[in-house]
C-alpha cells in the first residue's frame, strides 16, 4: 500500500488532540502519580505499614510522620500508600471480567436483535431494578467478606452497564451503511462483529471502564468501611477511614488523609474518563 | 433588501464580503454548492447564525419584514401542536388578532398556499402531513408574519419533482399576487432559473458572478458558473410540448 500520501494516521491525530485536552492531561497525571506510588509503596514508604508503635499513637503530622500516626502508632503515610496498592489492584481486577462479558453481550445482543436481544434486555432490566449496593452487599455476604466476595459480586453485576450502553451503540451502528455493506460483501457475522463493530465501540467501552473502576474503588472503600471488604491487617482506605472516624473531631488527620487519597484517585479517574470522551468525540 | 460586504466568521472566515441587493417584488436566486455560504447568507440576514459564528463585517438592510422557509420543515414545526394552531398563534402575535379571528385567518392562509381539505389538515400534527403539505404549512407560517421579503433556503430540495413543481409555481404566484420579494437559495441552477429574474453565484463564501438569469445561463463569464451549468444534466425536449 502506498505510503507517500499525506494521510495522517489516526493514532497521531489522536495524540495531538489528547495533548490539547486539559481534563485528560490532568487526569492521567494524577493516575500516573497514584499508580507509581501504589506500585512502589513497599520501596518508598518510610515505614512498614503494619509495624506498631503503641507509645506513639495518634501523633499529629510531623517531620518523622508526615501524615501522623494512627491509634496503634502505625505511620499513616505508609498505610495510605500500601492501601493504594490494595484498593487499585482490586478495583482494576474486579473491572476486567465485567468489561469483557458486558462488551461481548452488548455487541452480540445489539447485532443479533430479535428475541435474544429481548431476553438480554429483560435480564438487564431486572438487575437495574435492584439498588446497586443491595446487590453487591448480598453477594459479598453470601460469598464471604474480602477480596473474593468483591470479585464475585462484580463479575455478577458489573457487566450490566457495558451491556446496556454497548448494545444501544451497536444497534445505531448496525443501521449505518458500512455495516450492511460489510455483510453484503460476504463477510461473516464474526468478522463484522469483532473486526468492524468492536473497534468502533471500543472507545466507549474504555470510557465506561474508567467510570466503573472509580465506582468499584468507591465500593471497595465503602465495603471496607462497613467491615465487609478487605480484612485487616491488609491496609485499605475504607477500613482506615472507618477506624479513624472515632477521632474525627480531635485527630482529624487520621480519617481525613485516607479520605483525601480516595477523592484524589476518584478525581483522576473521572477526569481521565471525561477527557477520553472528549478526545474520542463521544458526546 | 441590501447586503453590503457581509462577512461571517467562526474559527475561520466563511463569508468574505458578500454583497447582494433585492428590489421590491424581485426574485433573486443564490446558487452554489455545499460550503459556498449560500444558506449562511440567509441565516445572517435573519440573525439565525449557527452557534459559534458571528457577523464580523458589512451591513444588512431590510426594508420591511422578512420571513424564511427551510429545506426541512419538520425541524421548524412544533411536533406537539396542531399545524392550524401554530399558524393561528403567529397571526395572533403578529396581527394582534383574537383567538377566533386568528383561526379564520390561518384557514385563509392555508387557502393562499393552496392546501386542499384545509379544515381537516389544520387539525393534523406535522408528522401526519406529506413533505409537500409541510412545506406549504411552513410557507403559511411565513406568510402569517406578513413579510415583504421571503427568504427560501432550498425549500424544494427534499420534495418529489411533481411536488417541487407545485411549490415553485405557488411561490411564483404568491410573488405576483402580493408583490413579495424573494431570495431563493438552491444548488440547482435549473430550479433557480424557473423562478428568479436575477441570479448570484456563490463559491467558498464569495460572489463569483451575478446578473440576469437569462444572461448568466446563456453567457456565463466565470469558469465556476460554467462548471455549474455543465453539471446540469440535460433532458431532451418532450414531444408534444410542455403544457402542464
Amino acid at each position, binding site marked *: 500500500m502506498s505510503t507517500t500520501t499525506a494521510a495522517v494516521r*489516526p493514532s497521531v491525530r489522536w495524540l495531538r488532540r489528547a495533548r490539547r485536552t486539559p481534563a485528560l492531561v490532568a487526569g492521567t497525571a494524577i493516575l500516573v502519580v497514584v499508580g507509581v506510588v501504589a506500585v512502589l509503596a513497599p520501596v518508598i514508604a518510610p515505614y512498614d505499614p503494619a509495624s506498631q508503635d503503641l507509645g506513639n499513637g495518634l501523633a499529629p503530622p510531623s517531620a518523622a510522620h508526615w501524615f501522623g500516626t494512627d491509634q496503634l502508632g502505625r505511620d499513616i503515610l505508609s498505610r495510605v500508600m500500601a492501601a493504594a496498592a490494595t484498593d487499585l489492584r482490586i478495583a482494576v481486577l474486579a473491572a476486567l471480567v465485567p468489561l469483557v462479558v458486558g462488551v461481548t453481550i452488548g455487541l452480540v445482543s445489539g447485532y443479533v436483535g430479535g428475541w435474544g436481544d429481548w431476553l438480554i434486555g429483560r435480564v438487564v432490566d431486572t438487575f437495574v431494578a435492584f439498588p446497586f449496593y443491595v446487590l453487591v452487599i448480598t453477594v459479598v455476604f453470601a460469598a464471604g467478606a474480602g477480596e473474593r466476595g468483591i470479585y464475585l459480586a462484580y463479575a455478577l453485576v458489573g457487566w450490566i452497564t457495558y451491556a446496556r450502553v454497548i448494545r444501544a451503540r451497536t444497534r445505531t451502528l448496525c443501521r449505518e*451503511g458500512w455495516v*450492511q455493506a460489510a455483510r453484503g460483501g460476504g463477510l461473516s457475522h464474526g468478522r463484522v462483529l469483532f473486526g468492524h463493530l468492536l473497534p468502533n465501540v471500543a472507545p466507549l467501552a474504555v470510557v465506561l471502564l474508567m467510570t466503573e473502576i472509580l465506582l468499584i474503588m468507591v465500593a471497595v472503600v465503602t465495603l471496607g468501611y462497613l467491615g465487609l471488604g478487605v480484612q485487616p491487617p491488609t491496609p485499605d482506605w475504607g477500613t482506615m477511614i472507618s477506624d479513624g472516624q472515632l477521632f474525627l473531631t480531635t485527630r482529624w488527620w487520621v480519617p481525613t488523609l485516607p479520605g483525601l487519597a480516595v477523592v484524589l484517585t476518584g478525581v483522576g479517574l473521572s477526569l481521565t474518563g471525561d477527557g477520553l470522551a472528549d478526545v474520542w468525540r463521544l458526546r | 433588501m441590501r447586503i453590503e460586504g457581509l462577512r461571517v466568521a467562526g474559527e475561520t472566515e466563511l463569508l468574505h464580503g458578500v454583497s447582494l441587493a433585492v428590489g421590491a417584488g424581485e426574485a433573486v436566486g443564490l446558487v452554489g454548492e455545499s460550503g459556498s455560504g449560500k444558506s449562511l447568507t440567509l441565516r445572517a440576514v435573519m440573525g439565525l447564525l449557527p452557534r459559534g459564528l458571528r457577523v464580523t463585517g458589512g451591513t444588512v438592510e431590510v426594508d420591511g419584514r422578512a420571513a424564511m422557509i427551510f429545506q426541512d420543515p419538520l425541524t421548524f414545526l412544533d411536533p406537539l401542536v396542531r399545524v392550524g394552531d401554530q399558524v393561528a398563534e403567529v397571526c395572533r402575535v403578529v396581527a394582534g388578532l383574537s383567538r377566533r379571528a386568528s383561526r379564520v385567518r390561518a384557514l385563509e392562509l392555508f387557502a393562499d398556499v393552496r392546501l386542499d381539505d384545509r379544515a381537516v389538515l389544520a387539525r393534523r400534527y406535522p408528522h401526519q402531513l406529506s413533505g409537500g403539505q409541510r412545506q406549504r404549512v411552513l410557507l403559511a407560517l411565513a406568510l402569517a408574519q406578513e413579510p415583504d421579503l421571503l427568504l427560501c433556503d432550498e425549500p424544494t430540495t427534499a420534495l418529489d*419533482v411533481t411536488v417541487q413543481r407545485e411549490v415553485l409555481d405557488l411561490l411564483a404566484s404568491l410573488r405576483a399576487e402580493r408583490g413579495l420579494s424573494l431570495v431563493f437559495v438552491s444548488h*440547482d441552477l435549473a430550479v433557480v432559473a424557473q423562478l428568479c429574474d436575477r441570479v448570484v453565484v456563490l463559491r467558498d463564501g464569495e460572489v463569483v458572478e451575478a446578473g440576469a438569469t437569462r444572461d448568466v445561463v446563456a453567457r456565463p463569464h466565470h469558469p465556476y458558473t460554467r462548471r455549474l451549468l*455543465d*453539471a446540469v*444534466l440535460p433532458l431532451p425536449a418532450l414531444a408534444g410540448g410542455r403544457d402542464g
Partner: protein
Amino acid sequence: MADGLELTGVSVAYAGRRVVDDVSLQVRPGTIVGLVGESGSGKTTLARAVVGTVGLAGGTVHLDGTPLARRRSRTERRAVQLVQQDPYASLNPLLTVGRVLDELLRVHRLAERRIASDTAGAPDAGAWRRARCAELMGLVGLEADTLGRYPRQLSGGQRQRVAIARALAVEPRILVADEPTSALDVTVQRTVLDVLVGLSARVGLGVLLISHDLSVIHAACDDVAVLREGRIVEHAPAARFFTHPSDPYSRRLLQAVPRLPERAP
C-alpha cells in the same frame, strides 16, 4: 432464461400492505436500467428485495437463469452488490480504503482462485491483491494513493467511488445503485455516473440505477422503468421514454423537471 438479473412478478409486503406489487424487470449484463420513482413508490424496498435483505411476498428473482434462494448463500450475495445513497455512512471510519478492499479479496480468496486458474508465472497472493486494489481504484477513476486514506480524508464523490470499488472488489454480476448521486454536489454527480456507465461497458456489469432524478437516469441508462405506488407503470428504452413517454404519469414526471433556458453554443 437469459443472462443477467430477471425479476418476475416480485412483490414485497410490509404489515399486510404490498409496497412492491408484481414487478417484472430484466437487467442484462453490460446495460444500465433506470428505475424512477417518487418517495413512497417502493424503489428502495425493491432494491432491498433484489440484494436479498428483505423477503419476497411473491415472485422470483433469477440470476443468469438460476433462481436465488430466500436465504442467499455467500456466493449469491457476492453476485448482487448494493451501492447506497449516503457515502458518508457507507464506509467504516476506522479503516483505510486499502484495508477494506484487501479484506474482501482475502475473505473470498479471490487472489488464490485467480492464481490457481492462471498457469503462466503466477505472482504471490499478496502482490496480486495489491495490484487488484490499484486496478479497482483505476476502474472508478481514483488515484492509487487513495488506498492509504481514511474515509474522513475523502470528499463525498470520492467516497461514493470507493463504495463502488468496494462493490466491484467481490466481482459481482449485478450492481444495484440506490440514489448514488443524490447526496453529492451537482458538479460531482456526473463523475459518479460516468464511472457507472464506463463500468457497465468495460466490465460487462449489469446495473440497476435507482433515482428520483430523471436527468440522472437520462445521463446513464439504456432502459427506464417508472415505479408508482409499487407498480411499474412504464418500461421503455431510454431513447423513446424521454421524448415519447406512453404513460400519463411518466409524462407528468417529465414535465415537472425544471429545465434550463437555452444556452448559447
